[in-house]
């Protein structure tokens, strides 16, 4: 599977983070964005999302809580990623340990690392199908 066909959902309460993400990755993969966990769940239900990247510190639903809800949806082939400036945060670390999040990406985002991760995931999808 080409990564240009991968649907990526990016969740962050900061509008400029969403917009700069779109502007940077536009054309590289398909981008959906949400400013909060509720919207994110709605988008997940309606679209075939393969990768969800969420900020952790958000009002109402934290990133880790959102990813826990995603886990409960029991969607097939979805890669959950946390994007946070606080990698040492206990909640984030627990989420990584229990597999709620597969990766944790630091802020500022490393463009190449993210593309690498998505490529790798796209490859594993291909093997499965």
């Amino acid at each position, binding site marked *: 599977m080409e990564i240009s066909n991968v649907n990526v959902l990016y969740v962050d309460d*900061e509008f*400029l*983070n969403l*917009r*700069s*993400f779109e*502007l*940077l990755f536009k054309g590289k993969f398909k981008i959906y964005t949400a400013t909060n966990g509720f919207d994110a769940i709605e988008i997940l239900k309606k679209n075939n999302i393969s990768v969800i990247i969420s900020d952790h*510190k958000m009002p109402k639903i934290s990133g880790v809580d959102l990813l826990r809800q995603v886990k409960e949806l029991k969607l097939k082939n979805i890669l959950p990623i946390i994007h946070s*400036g*606080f990698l*040492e945060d206990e909640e984030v670390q627990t989420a990584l340990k229990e597999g709620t999040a597969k990766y944790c990406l630091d*802020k*500022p*985002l490393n*463009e190449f690392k993210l593309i690498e991760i998505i490529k790798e995931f796209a490859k594993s999808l291909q093997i499965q199908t």
Partner: protein
Amino acid sequence: MKSDDQTKTYSILIADDNPNNLKILGSMLEKMGYNVRVAKNGEQAFNSVKTLPPDLILLDIHMPIMDGYEVCKAIKKEKDIQDIPIIFLSALTESFNKIQAFKAGGVDYITKPFEVEEVEIRIINHIRLRERSLKLQIALDELKVKEKQLIQTEKMAALGVLTSGLAHEINNPINFISNSILALKERTDKLIDMSKTLASTDEDVENLRKTTKDVPEIFDNITTGIDHITNIVKSLRIYSRVDKDQLVLSSISELIDTSLLILYHRYKEKILIEKNYNSAPKTLCHPAKISQVFLNILSNAIDGIDEANLKYGEQIDRKIVITTSFDEKNSTITINFQDNGIGIKESVKNKIFDPFFTTKEVNKGSGLGLAICSSIIKEHNGTISVESAGSDDKSKTSFTVILPVRS
């Protein structure tokens, strides 16, 4: 007489110009179990006290060279011996003499001829009093250190709340600035490529070259700036965990770098920092506290170098060498900080970890920095020590912290 713990024998100095008195009183006290020293005149008494301070002094008033009042006043002026209790022993019975004796700093006055029992009780009382006041002083000092430490912890906790909030707030703009720069760079590169194909004349090509020549450098500079801000914010994060009492798996070299980053404005351009970090495992510790220890040692090193520069003129080879090493056998990490600043005098070397000891000017140092460092390192079951060698402008001071590795 023995102390409360029954191990210490007390020493008493008797000063009297009458050899008979010395003999009688001396043998009497020795029978009671005291170590007795004698002095035949005031000057001898003062010198004897200075060389080897006794636990108590029995002082006659009428003596040649220096009389008892003078000896007492002289002793009260010396910081190291001023707290030794002095009991006057004299045949003078006028209240005038007694008042003189108490004014000079005596704690008691016994008139001759004396009752043996009375002398003994007075001696015991004053030794006990002195002992208790010493214990109280130590307890008070400890309390003051604890209090300062508590205030410091409170401050750091408040700072932690502030910095973690700040770090989070800064992380977001850094993130979208960083993303935007990358996006802009991609588009600019494309634009330059497209312009190249569109440039038809030599003039166009030259103009394009001139206009785009600096573009890569401009992007590099922005990226460097973003990296710097990112590192500063990251290093502040350790303070966000100071209020939590739990231990965090931390890299010692990262904690040193954090301390260096905070002190950067104080050493940049004038002091070279040489780092010899050898690989060591991460260890469980209170990162903010350990970083505070490093901050203190480094800050003292910078002070020492500043002082040396002030005294001997600026020298370009002023430096701080930081070495870390891991001892696999004992499972300890050794961190050594060496500077070539003003150095530490041999006479004060043993006191620098004592609370309230400072060589700095009034209001410049609390005298608690290294005392707190020492208690933090103790709390981590480690050790902290100092070596200072050389003199004048060629001093070397070296602080060594040894921490057991816990994981």
